């Protein structure tokens, strides 16, 4: 069985991988489109930044419930509920970390050299071709930043997991929940170990994001 650290790492990895698969084409589309839906979709994407995690947690709890269509369909398909499951946490984390994946990608795509993209287009490269063979390599720092921030933000998730996770060891008992429980049961030594680890981790992550940004600036 996975302890809180292993479980958190797994959750953040799976979330990052799945979210990047969705966020890259989505951010690419957002960066190039002039659709009237653009501000609407941008606003929806940014909402997890301003909403209290409890709002997300509350709605997810209702959505995951077997009393509702999604929850009951999932229960029939898999035999277990979405709430209190690792899969449920992955879905919750993808929503929760969505802006951290999409926004860095979108701004990286928006800053790409138009001339190069147009040249590729005139040589017959379709939009997806331009994305994968040109835009992604050119925007690789944005991609790195998006992936690192998504991973780190998922590691730091607390409120949503507290509401839909149910604190099951090896399944939904991630680091933040474990710390909360250690503090409430006055086991400060254990709380210190995990909290110290998180402190170092978040510093290293943010430092690497800023270092990436610095390199990019120097090159430009």
């Amino acid at each position: 069985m996975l302890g809180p650290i292993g479980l958190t790492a797994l959750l953040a990895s799976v979330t990052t991988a799945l979210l990047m698969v969705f966020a890259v084409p989505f951010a690419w589309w957002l960066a190039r489109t002039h659709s009237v839906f653009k501000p609407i979709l941008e606003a929806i994407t940014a909402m997890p930044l301003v909403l209290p995690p409890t709002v997300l947690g509350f709605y997810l709890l209702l959505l995951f419930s077997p009393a509702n269509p999604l929850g009951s369909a999932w229960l029939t398909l898999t035999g277990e509920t979405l709430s209190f499951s690792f899969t449920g946490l992955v879905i919750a984390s993808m929503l929760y970390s969505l802006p951290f994946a999409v926004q860095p990608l979108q701004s990286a795509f928006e800053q790409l050299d138009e001339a190069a993209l147009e040249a590729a287009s005139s040589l017959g490269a379709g939009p997806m071709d331009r994305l994968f063979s040109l835009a992604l390599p050119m925007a690789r720092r944005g991609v790195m930043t998006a992936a690192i921030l998504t991973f780190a933000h998922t590691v730091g998730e607390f409120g949503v997991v507290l509401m839909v996770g149910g604190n099951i060891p090896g399944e939904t008992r991630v680091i933040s929940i474990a710390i909360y429980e250690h503090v409430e049961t006055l086991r400060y030594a254990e709380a210190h170990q995990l909290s110290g680890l998180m402190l170092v981790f978040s510093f290293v992550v943010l430092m690497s994001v800023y270092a990436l940004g610095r390199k990019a600036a120097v090159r430009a």
Partner: protein
Amino acid sequence: MVRLSSALLVFALCLLPARAFAAQAKVAVASNFSQTLVTIADIFKQQTGHSLTLVNGSTGALFAQIRSGAPYDIYFAADALRPRQLEDAGLGYHRMTYAIGRVVLWMPNQKLKADALSQDIAAQLDALKGRVALAQPRLAPYGAAARQVLADWRFDGSRLVYGQNVGQTYSFINSGNAAAGFIAAAQIAGQNRRDVWPVPQALHAPIRQDLVILNPENKAAAALRTFMQSPQVAALLEAHGYDAVTGVQ
């Protein structure tokens, strides 16, 4: 603006003499008791003028907050252990049992006979699909009692899901995310539900709920402690799913 606020100030000052003897207390209350205490607080305010601000959480969580200096005046726990520990640590005074808690097993949409045998209920719970919720035993005495029952039944531990307190446990079951679970009788008191089984008190250690005064200077807290021993409150406790405490402590 200035005129308006000075008018308000005068108005507020006029109110003061009438409420001069009324005090205010911050009450830390275990989740299972918070609904009941809201009712009690209303009556208490009518009769004494003292007003209460309730802060609810699991017994363990509130205990940790008090140990870290949270500014509560009185603490209504769901067990006897933590108030005693506060007393031992010199942080609590005048400990007293205010109610005996009752646990119920709630299986929404299942018909349960109140007098059903323990092993029949255990079998019914086993056969039920889905998760079974209880409050985190380390934090919440109702969760600890539930765990005693489940251990006795040799219930499959991998099907359990833990709420931070009985309040969250209730919402897990109520929202349909958990198929059944153990909550406080107080949470569904007066609903006449047929999908609830009162867990016999013999199946777990009694849930003696103690209170302790944290701030001996606070008049409202002291008055509340006295008020909790009144026959009026005893009747209210029974109606809310608790056993009242009879006789001397």
